[in-house]
């Protein structure tokens, strides 16, 4: 029999018996970041493609969600900090190797950009809206004039943000569940998909919904592929990786992951979306909400489970 124990009675809060330093704040932060990335990406994409008219929800209305989501996300991140008075320290340095630093700076740029973008559509949303300050009109004019380059920038930053939500975790070599290069693309795709789901839910245009649903089906397909790939990678890996995978293959996260994330959050919505495309009447909010909830649970599970996994020695 093998036995391992701490004889010095170690029992550090949030570290023992397994790491649990990140609670709900981080998955919520990652989730909101992912949705924002999704919305901004598609807003940028269809602007670049010159489809503002056909895709008004995507390009205009859904973007109003983004600043809200980002600010909420940042607030969640702030709540996670244990030494909040020193929050500003994030912005006195750029740490190239630190995903956390990356994220902070990305948000530093993307949040004002998203605000400006949404604001530039406010007059279309609320006819008769007047800026109180003259300067804002000038800015608005500028934004409207440079919309195309801004759209490119937004797409690029959205991808950075989306990938970042995954890399934040995958950069941690110490947590076998996270330490896989698939996590970046997986979180990006999942972020894009949840962003789409939000837009689809909001959209009133059948055309727009159809276009987006088609994209979403592809994204979910990719996501499922990445998930399978993820587990194949784990099972082919070292003992700690296999142990990590086992949390999902019979371990304590099995039902939550396969039931809520994969089946309810990906497979059922994709079936419903296909059914809708081929003409069945499906209330549009059902697949959207499933994808949105699935995405949230996915992040909760990944953050939680990842912290349990560790090197054994």
């Amino acid at each position, binding site marked *: 029999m093998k036995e391992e124990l701490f004889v*010095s009675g170690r029992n550090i809060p949030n570290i023992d018996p397994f790491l649990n330093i990140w609670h709900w704040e981080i998955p919520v932060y990652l989730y909101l970041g992912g949705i924002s990335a999704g919305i901004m990406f598609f807003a940028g994409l269809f602007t670049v493609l010159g489809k503002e008219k056909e895709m008004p929800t995507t390009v205009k209305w859904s973007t109003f969600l983004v600043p809200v989501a980002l600010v909420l996300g940042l607030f969640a991140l702030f709540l996670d900090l244990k030494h909040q008075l020193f929050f500003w320290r994030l912005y006195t340095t750029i740490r190239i190797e630190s995903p956390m630093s990356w994220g902070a700076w990305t948000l530093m740029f993307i949040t004002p950009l998203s605000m400006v973008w949404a604001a530039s559509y406010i007059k279309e949303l609320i006819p008769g809206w007047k800026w109180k300050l003259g300067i804002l009109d000038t800015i608005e004019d500028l934004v409207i004039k440079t919309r195309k380059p801004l759209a490119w920038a937004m797409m690029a930053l959205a991808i950075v943000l989306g990938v970042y939500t995954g890399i934040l975790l995958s950069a941690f070599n110490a947590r076998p569940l996270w330490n896989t290069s698939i996590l970046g693309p997986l979180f990006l795709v999942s972020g894009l998909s949840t962003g789409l789901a939000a837009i689809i839910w909001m959209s009133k245009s059948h055309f727009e919904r159809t276009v987006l649903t088609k994209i979403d089906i592809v994204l979910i397909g990719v996501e499922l592929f990445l998930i399978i790939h993820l587990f194949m990678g784990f099972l082919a890996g070292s003992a700690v990786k296999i142990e990590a995978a086992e949390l999902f293959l019979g371990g304590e996260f099995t039902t939550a992951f396969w039931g809520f994330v994969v089946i309810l959050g990906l497979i059922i919505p994709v079936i419903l979306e296909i059914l809708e495309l081929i003409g069945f009447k499906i209330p549009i909010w059902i697949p959207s909400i499933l994808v949105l909830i699935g995405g949230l649970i996915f992040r909760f599970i990944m953050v939680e489970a990842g912290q349990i996994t560790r090197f054994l020695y």
Partner: protein
Amino acid sequence: MKTRRDFIKVSAAGAGAAAIGLSALNWNGVNTAQASNSQNPVSDEEMTSFPTYCEVCFWKCAGWTYVDKNNNIRKIIGNKEDPHCSGRLCPRGTGGVGMYTDNDRLKTPLIRETVNGKQGFRKASWSEALDLVASKMKGVADNYGPESFALFNHGAPGAHFKHLLHAYGSENEGEPAWAQCRGPREVGFSATYGSWIGSPEPTDIRDTDCLVLIGSHLGENMHNGQVQEVSTVIDRGATIITVDPRLSTIASKSKYWLPIKPATDLALLLSWIHVLIYEDIYDKKYIEQYAMGFDQLKAHVKNMTPEWAYGITTIQPDVIRKTAREMANASPSVIVHPGRHVVWYGDDSQRERAIAILNALLGSWGKRGGFYFKEALKVPKYPHPEYPHAHWSWKDNLDGKYPLSAMGITTELLKASIPEFDYKHQIKAWLVAGTNLPLTIPDKELFQTAAQSVEFIAVVDTMPMDITAYADVILPECTYLERYDTIRSAPHREPNIALRMPAVKPKYETKPSWWIAKQLGERLGLAAYFDYDDYEEVLDWQLKKLGTSLEEMQKIGVKIFDRQSGPLYLADGEDYTFNTNTGKIELYSTEFEDHGFDPLPKFTKHPEPEEGFYRLIYGRAPMHTFSRTSNNPNLYDLMNENTVWVNPKVAELWDLKKDQEVWLQNQDGVVSTFPIKVRITERIRWDSVYMVHGFGHKNKKLTRTYGRGASDSKLITNIMTDPMMGGSGMRGNFVTFLTTDPGKEDDV
């Protein structure tokens, strides 16, 4: 007249009405939140250090208490000059800070009172509490004679109260260090060599080539100097042979681990003696020159072959031979360690005799790498009038029982407190200082009946330990970090002394023992015995007689003196007279014979557990001292409860899971008060279970440790008393597992 009977009834009725009474009085004052620890480390130069010697156990390591500018005690560091610790304290000594910072400490004197039929404690002033104790002592002296007043003590407070007791006219004093600890080995060794082992043990471990441990679990038994010396044995790659039913830490580092069947050590020892003699590998020159009784011994062990011992001990004959030869090869640089807590099976003095004999055959007594000749400095007595004559003492009750007991037998004092025992002389009241009797003395019923029987109990302690719940008056002592005490002068390779002085003022309203004793003395009209205002005067007077001064000692803490008694070891062939009846090492004990005991140790079989029961063995955890540290905030961090060690085979049989809580029930149906978690481990035999002593506290005022783990003492109800010296053999108890809560049992 109050009796404890009331109190115990009260506390037995449900969650403890007495406890409620206590908390209503806010016994310990406000639980101030732990001071912020956020300050960065303070460098040693920014602190002041004061000499002390440690009181967390009786090894008494000398060290320095570091105090920062805000008068916070930050740390305690060993004194590099001190032979007890060489500058390194053990975890308990390092964690001694927690004795000072513990918010649960006793804070003010407390007096038992009854309000609306409910007993509880109320705060009292020192003068009121001292007046009360003194008047009770006077009362006892007037009504029954001062001899009827007994002192239970252990550690530093003992010296001060013994002085008070003797001045008052009683010699009825006992400490667990004898009958619950090391008595048998002093009896066994003094019968053989005419000398006690004493403390610290004069084992020359740092130079030994072969260390044999009979149960002694050095490394868990954290007696510092020995542990440090054992580490050099490992460095040197010398042989360690450990006999223990459990893979103790030191067993895991030993060349040989002999997982003996418990209670059979004497057979192993005798067979080792057999091998040494019959393989002719004992130290002939040494035996011829210094020993007597060899022929009798040889005849005695003739049939005690390894094969004979194998049937008893389960140790393979070839292992017995091999290990005996290892010892002989190393001879005389070999130590068969006498152990320390040796009250196991009632024949302990005889087991210790066998150990002493084995050492003699190996020629290790008085030899480098064996036992050195220790020396201590005699600290002159501060002048005081002669003590009055005590008309009787506990000895007079014995009627010839336990003739070899050289110190007070705690359990006999307890029996003398119970009228039903019908002793010639009765004890009527107690002072308890520095010993937690309910967890220290096995056979709780005996203790409780005695506590119910006496008229008055005063307790001097630093913590609201279980003993305080039996007190009529509780006198809070300050910790060792806050007081002066007697000069430490313990035997060692070189005579040495150490000073303990306060590093900070006593917290709360606590006071040092010397002050309490003096105050009581003055109230009893014994002021002449306490002819000083401050203990500093006593110390300075004594130190000056020793050629130093309080001032010097305050700077250096420890002083080493030159030996006066001659060399550390016997020279080859040197003449030497031992302090025995014959002047020789007595392989055949004339002293034992004179008292009608076996002059040569005999193996007797001890009872074994019935089916479904396991022998209860216990020991130390390196980070705790008995029951005194389990509430210490620093040490609690390291270990906050004990577990019961169970062999995986046994666990399977009982379907026990790791960390599952079980209750233990012993052969007499006594059940542990609290559940204890199971540790399933290959480190123990399947016929025994093991637990660390000192847990299972029942006083709720110990906010950390209350109810954590189980008390071994409670399960030790079968006492196998040593007929020679009255030791309480504690290892003849067997337990079984209860996996469901047996319910609140009546704990009277």
